[in-house]
Each structure stands twice: as structure tokens, then as C-alpha cells.
């Protein structure tokens, strides 16, 4: 937009935001935000978790009311009082936490956000046509509850496109996608840009911002700290703007003497039948994690990782007690509490509703997961909870992991995703477990927080614990693992030492190629 005179609200900008402010209690989530989005550009909104990105876009979409500030659409001052108003103006939104209804079909979900009275069948036909023209095939009659996250996101995007918006807001769209699905999304976005639509792209993945965005606005602690052209920046310089200081690269000292270290977690012939029609069966999984090492498990989502985590954590105990051994003792038949008492700790994939009870305070969530292992310090005589001890422990974790929050002891649901994840990982690390199993440790977590979590996991391993990390993020696994195994269709490959592992080798295994599966295929034959 070089050379435009800054006449107050020139029409070259589709959207202008001036001094937008939102205050929650004592926390200023957005502090006098200025933002310009030109026509036909992909504009990145960068920032760490809790920097105010989601709050800002919720105000642009009318789901939150700003305390002060102005919004200009097409040069005219507007008040966006509800999502309906935003839609009428031509603003569409693809949410981070999908706003879909699981019990309804794709077509019904789409119909709900279109305010015309056309019958479902017409909408289904339109959605099908549009989805194929953008190369995002979609079956309008399928039930959302049965779909993968990638497919769900397609519904959101198609739903948004059917409203023919001028501005599309995407909130962390790739955090749930495989690399292939993400590529598909980028193609779609570039096509939309070519059609003259504007896109506000929220992300903390710097490489993809550099790849597809034309300009960027960076937020930190609720304030704009800079506007830039991401193509002229490096990932490191963008990260510096976001975090405000150098992001420390994760350091991994070489693990020594692992071969002779005791095996703290052993999985022997773990097999599991599918519990529901949509579940993946586990087929004869073998894995050993020794004291001092981090083993990573890669794989495309939905290849049995969830089922594997459930079996290893004890959410679903096994028939065969020897199939999971912790510190040399059979643990397969024990519940999650039994396994915790043996020195294991677990961080599940879903933060809200699984890793933490959303409507309970952080200190209460701490007590829920550690009442058995820390019975002595948290529970007094006669079974009375020592509230102050629990509260102090929660504060200790909050300080150790730099959890940002708006109240001393907020409800879990009040924290942003990354901050809650820091708390949940910190809650388990605080116990100094000898076996730590983490599923998707930094899902939807920004660079600064992710580096902190990864570093903490490596340090835990080097201090003599066994760490098992399940992740879809290959960069992450290469950063922190000493060896990487791949899960495909319920089978686990032999771990590949990190010195021998390449993206290509792991990628092939993720796609179901056989090299690492040699042992299994012989047994199965």
C-alpha cells in the first residue's frame, strides 16, 4: 500500500481498527490496538498465547464488546454488536475451537449460520459444489461427530465461504492439521486472495506466516508492538518481536550411557481391540524407554495414538498386566492412580475436560490429579484437604512455568490454551516423576511457551527419568527426542535413533511404508 496518503480513513483499507480496548476485570486483554487490513492481502496477526489475539478477533466478529475504540469498515465507522452484524458487513470467521455441532450433519451446521430460509438440500448441494471447486471435498450428509479435525475445519471454511465474505478471519487454522492438510489450506487461501478477498491469519507458526502472509501485526501483552512484512523478516526476528526477547533454542545435551540405563517404561506386546466403531485397534506394540532418554512417537492424527495413550496411562487398564511395566513392575492392570503411585505422570491431549476440569480452579485441578501421590502434603488427618498447601503448590507451579492469568487462582477455562498447557505440564513435572508420558505437549502453544515446555521435558529426562512424547509436530519431535518411533494404523515402528532419523524417513513411515515394521510383519506373516 506504499504511497497512500494517510487521509484518515482511506478506502484502500477494507478494515481499520483504531484504539480498540478490552478489559476483563484487572486484565487489559487488548490495549489500544491499531490494525489495517488492505483488500486482497493475507494479514498475519502474531503473538504469544495470552497476547490478546483471540480477544481482538472476537471483537471484530462481534462476539465480544470493546470497552473503547473504533472500527472502520470500507472507510465507514461501524459498531459490530453481534456476529450477525459482522456477517452482514462481510466478515466471516473460522474458529480455533470449532463452533460446530457434533450431533448435526455438515449441511445442518452450514445451514445454521446462513440466515436464508433455503431448504437443507439446497444448502447441501451448494456446499458440495463449493467444496469441490476449492478442492476441499466434503460430504454434506456426514455427521460432524464422525469427522476428523481436518474435515471439521473444511466445514467451517466452506460455511464461511458460503456467506461470500470480504474478510475471512482464521484463528490458528493449522494447529490441528497434518502438513498435507495445511498445504491444501494454503492453496485455498492463495486462491481467495487472488479473488480479491482479505484474510486475517492468526498464527504463531512463523514459517507459515513467512510463507503466505503479505503483512503482519505483532501483539505482545495486549499491545501492538510492530507492523512488518514477514517476507523480509526471519523466523528469529519475528519470534523476537512476539516474545520481546530472544527465544532460547531448546538445548539437548547428548544422552550418555542410555544402553545400560534401567528401563523405566516397558511396553510388551500391547494389543487392544477397538472400543467403539471408530476406534483404531492396537497391534502388538513393543517399546522400551530407559532412564535419561526422550522417545518421540510420530504419526498422522487418528492412527491409534489416542488409544495408545489411554492404555499406557491406565485410563483403560489392560487384561495383560505385563503389557505395561513401570520401573520393572507390571502395571497393565492398574488404574491411572495406581500407575501414578508407581512414579508415572501423564499429560493427555485435550486440555479442557481431560487434562483439567474447566470450571474448577487451578488449585482444585492440582488436587484432583495429585491427591493420591501427594496425599501427605495435600490431605490432612481425617481426610480434610489442606487448602493452603494446595494453593501454595499451585502458585509454585504457576511461577515455575510462567503461567499468565487474570486472577490469583482462576478457573482452568479462564486461561488461554498455552497457559493452561504450561500449568498442566508443570503440575506433573513438579512431582519429579520417574516416567512421564505426554500426548501433544505443545498443541496450540506459542513459540516461547513451547520452548519452555520442551526444555523442561529434556531436563526431566537428563535428570534420570524416562520421557515418552506423542506428537504430530515433527519439528518438535526432532527438537527433543533421542529416538523417534512412528505409529501407523495401530502399529508402532522400531525407534529410529535421532542421528539416523530424517524427515523423509519418518514421513515415509507415517505414510505406512514398511522399513521400521520389519519385526512386526515377520511375526504377523
Amino acid at each position: 500500500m506504499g504511497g497512500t496518503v494517510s487521509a484518515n480513513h482511506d478506502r484502500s483499507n477494507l478494515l481499520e481498527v483504531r484504539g480498540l480496548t478490552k478489559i476483563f476485570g484487572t486484565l487489559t486483554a487488548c490495549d489500544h490496538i491499531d490494525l489495517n487490513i488492505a483488500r486482497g492481502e493475507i494479514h498475519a496477526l502474531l503473538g504469544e498465547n495470552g497476547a490478546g489475539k483471540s480477544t481482538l478477533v472476537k471483537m471484530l466478529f462481534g462476539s465480544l464488546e470493546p470497552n473503547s475504540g473504533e472500527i472502520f469498515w470500507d472507510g465507514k465507522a461501524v459498531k459490530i454488536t453481534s456476529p450477525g452484524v459482522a456477517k452482514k458487513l462481510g466478515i466471516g470467521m473460522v474458529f480455533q475451537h470449532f463452533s460446530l455441532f457434533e450431533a448435526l450433519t455438515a449441511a445442518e451446521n452450514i445451514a445454521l449460520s446462513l440466515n436464508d430460509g433455503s431448504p437443507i438440500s439446497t444448502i447441501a448441494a451448494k456446499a458440495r459444489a463449493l467444496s469441490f471447486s476449492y478442492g476441499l471435498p466434503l460430504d454434506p450428509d456426514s455427521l460432524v461427530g464422525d469427522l476428523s479435525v481436518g474435515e471439521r475445519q473444511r466445514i467451517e471454511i466452506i460455511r464461511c465461504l458460503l456467506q461470500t465474505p470480504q474478510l475471512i478471519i482464521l484463528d490458528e487454522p493449522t494447529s490441528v492439521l497434518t502438513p498435507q492438510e495445511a498445504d491444501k489450506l494454503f492453496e485455498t487461501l492463495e486462491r481467495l486472495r487472488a479473488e480479491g478477498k482479505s484474510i486475517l491469519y492468526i498464527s504463531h507458526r512463523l514459517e507459515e506466516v513467512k510463507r503466505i502472509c503479505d503483512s503482519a501485526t505483532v501483539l505482545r501483552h495486549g499491545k501492538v508492538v510492530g507492523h512488518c512484512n514477514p517476507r523480509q523478516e526471519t523466523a528469529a526476528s519475528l519470534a523476537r518481536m512476539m516474545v520481546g526477547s530472544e527465544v532460547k533454542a531448546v538445548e539437548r545435551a547428548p544422552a550418555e550411557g542410555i544402553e545400560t540405563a534401567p528401563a523405566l517404561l516397558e511396553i510388551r506386546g500391547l494389543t487392544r481391540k477397538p472400543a467403539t466403531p471408530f476406534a483404531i485397534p492396537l497391534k502388538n506394540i513393543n517399546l522400551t524407554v530407559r532412564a535419561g532418554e526422550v522417545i518421540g512417537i510420530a504419526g498422522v492424527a487418528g492412527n491409534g495414538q489416542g488409544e495408545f495413550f489411554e492404555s499406557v496411562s491406565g485410563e483403560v487398564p489392560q487384561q495383560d498386566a505385563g503389557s505395561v511395566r513401570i520401573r520393572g513392575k507390571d502395571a497393565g492392570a492398574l488404574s491411572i492412580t495406581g500407575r501414578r503411585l508407581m512414579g508415572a505422570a501423564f499429560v493427555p491431549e485435550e486440555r479442557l475436560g481431560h487434562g483439567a476440569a474447566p470450571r474448577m480452579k487451578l488449585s482444585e485441578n492440582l488436587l484432583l490429579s495429585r491427591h493420591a501421590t501427594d496425599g501427605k502434603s495435600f490431605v490432612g488427618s481425617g481426610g480434610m484437604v489442606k487448602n493452603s498447601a494446595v494453593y501454595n503448590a499451585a502458585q509454585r507451579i504457576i511461577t515455575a512455568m510462567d503461567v499468565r492469568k487474570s486472577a490469583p487462582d482462576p478457573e482452568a477455562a479462564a486461561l488461554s490454551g498455552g497457559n493452561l498447557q504450561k500449568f498442566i505440564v508443570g503440575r506433573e513435572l513438579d512431582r519429579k516423576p520417574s516416567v512421564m508420558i505426554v500426548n501433544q505437549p505443545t498443541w496450540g502453544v506459542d513459540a516461547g511457551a513451547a520452548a519452555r515446555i520442551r526444555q523442561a521435558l529434556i531436563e526431566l529426562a537428563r535428570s534420570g527419568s524416562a520421557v515418552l512424547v506423542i506428537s504430530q509436530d515433527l519439528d518438535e519431535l526432532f527438537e527433543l527426542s533421542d529416538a523417534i518411533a512412528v505409529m501407523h494404523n495401530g502399529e508402532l515402528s522400531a525407534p529410529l535413533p535421532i542421528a539416523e532419523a530424517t524427515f523423509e524417513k519418518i514421513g515415509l513411515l507415517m505414510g505406512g511404508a514398511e522399513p521400521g515394521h520389519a519385526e512386526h510383519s515377520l511375526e504377523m506373516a
Partner: protein
Amino acid sequence: MDITVNILLTIATAATPLLIAAIGELVVERSGVLNLGVEGMMIMGAVGGFGAGYLTGSPWIGLLAAIIVGALFSLLFAVMTLSLATNQVATGLSLTLLGLGLSGMIGTSFVGQPGVRLPNLDIPGVSSIPVVGKLIFGQDPVFYISIALTAAVMWFLFRTRTGLTLRSIGDSHTSAHALGIKVIRYRYLAVIFGGACAGLAGGHLSLVYTPQWVENMSAGRGWIALALVVFASWRPWRVLAGAYIFGAVWIGQLHAQAFGIPVPSQFLSSLPYLATIVVLVLISRNKRLTMMNTPASLGQPFVPDR
């Protein structure tokens, strides 16, 4: 032949109030609100209906009053749970307790008074046809209302956009809110509709079933209606089936007791409950369908963040 027809007629009369109250509660629960005050709204409808009918002499005005009283009483619940976001279970239970007490107090002067009864449909020449005439053209007006209501609710929920919106709110009020749907407004209307239905069901008790006022005359029917909704996995035609199974076994066991069948009467009295549960559990074995039809946000208070 006449006996069979009479038994069928009594079954319909027993099933009608259950069906109406349950259909109303089904709409409420589909919107994600659990109103345990059905019994209270029903008994208020019964006393209101009887009172208005008794004072004006018109059973039709009585029926209208029953509907209005039920709706107004549910408004109390709506204000508490939707505007003030109180706990739905506790509020619903208090509504029932309040209804039972309040109706007893209002009704003291009505006890023992002769009531008015809604006349049965009587189409000259048609209603007198043997069997069919009486069953199809000779029942009380509320019976026809109950059948029409069930069909209308089915059509509304599964064939109209507004019905789809209501179901979506029951599935996830946060998603609905994010789309700009007025969650609270929809829920208010659903709760008031449920109250009106419960009131109408109560009116049926005091203006058709037994046209008089007896304290506590709803006798747990509100609770049965609530259970029917759950066991019918929130589907209207199953509520209809459940209400009629309950009514049939209820009447059947009364006759069995009268004949002196050598089975403990307590067992016979519990049969309607057992039979209804067994049948409805059997027809809702399909897990997937049950999952699709269960309102996932049922009973959760909704406070929009703004």
C-alpha cells in the same frame, strides 16, 4: 366389544396428560434446559384450570387458564435459570415443591366442590358408529390436542429451520452463541412452551380425567413425564409410544387387581413403570442414534461472555 372400547378409551385418557407434559419437556430439554419442575407446573395448571372453570362455569376458560398458569409458573423458572443462571436441577426441584404447596393453599376452598367437565367430541352420526366412532371421533378435546401437538413438535424440530436452531442450542450453546444465535431468547421460549404444556396436562386432570380438585392430584405424573423424555431418547414419537405403553399397563394392572389375580398388588402397581422402561430401553439400543439425539449441553447454565 364395548368393554374393549371402554378400556381403550381409558388408556387414552390416562396417557394424554403424560404425553402432553412430556412433549413440552422434550422441547425444553432439546434446547439444553433441564426443568425438573414439571410436577409443580402440572399441579398449578390443575388448580388454575379447575378454579377458572368452577368460577366461570366454562371448562374451556378453565383449560385456557390452565395453560396460562403453567406458562407463567415456568416463567419463574426461566428467569431464575436463564437470566440469573441458577442451578437448573435445584431450581426445578424447588419449582415442584413450590407448586405442590401453593396449589394446595389456593385450592382449599375448591375441595369437594363439583367441577365442570370438558364434553367429549360428538359429531352427530359419526361419533355413534360402533368402535371406530367412539375411539376416533368421540374422545375429549385434549386427546386430539395431544396428538396434534406431538405431530407439530416432530415437524417443528426436524423439518423447520427454527427447530434446527433449537436443537443446535441444545447440542452446544457456546457454538450457537459464537454463530450469533440468541441462546437465551430461544431457551426462554422453549421453557415457557414446556410450562404451557405442563399446565395443559394439569388442566386435563382437573377438567377431564377427574373433574374435581384434590390436593396433590397430579400424583407423580410430572415425574413420569420427565422419565419418559429421557427413556424416549428425546424423540417425540417414542414419547408417544412410551406414554401409551405406560397408560395401557396402568389400566391393565388396575383391571388385574380388580379381578383379584393372585399377584402382590405392589408388583402390579410397579408394572407400568417397569414395562415402560424396558420397552424404551429396548428401542434405544442404537448408541449412535441415542448420541445424535441427546442434547449435549443439557442442564448446563449458559452465561455469555461479553
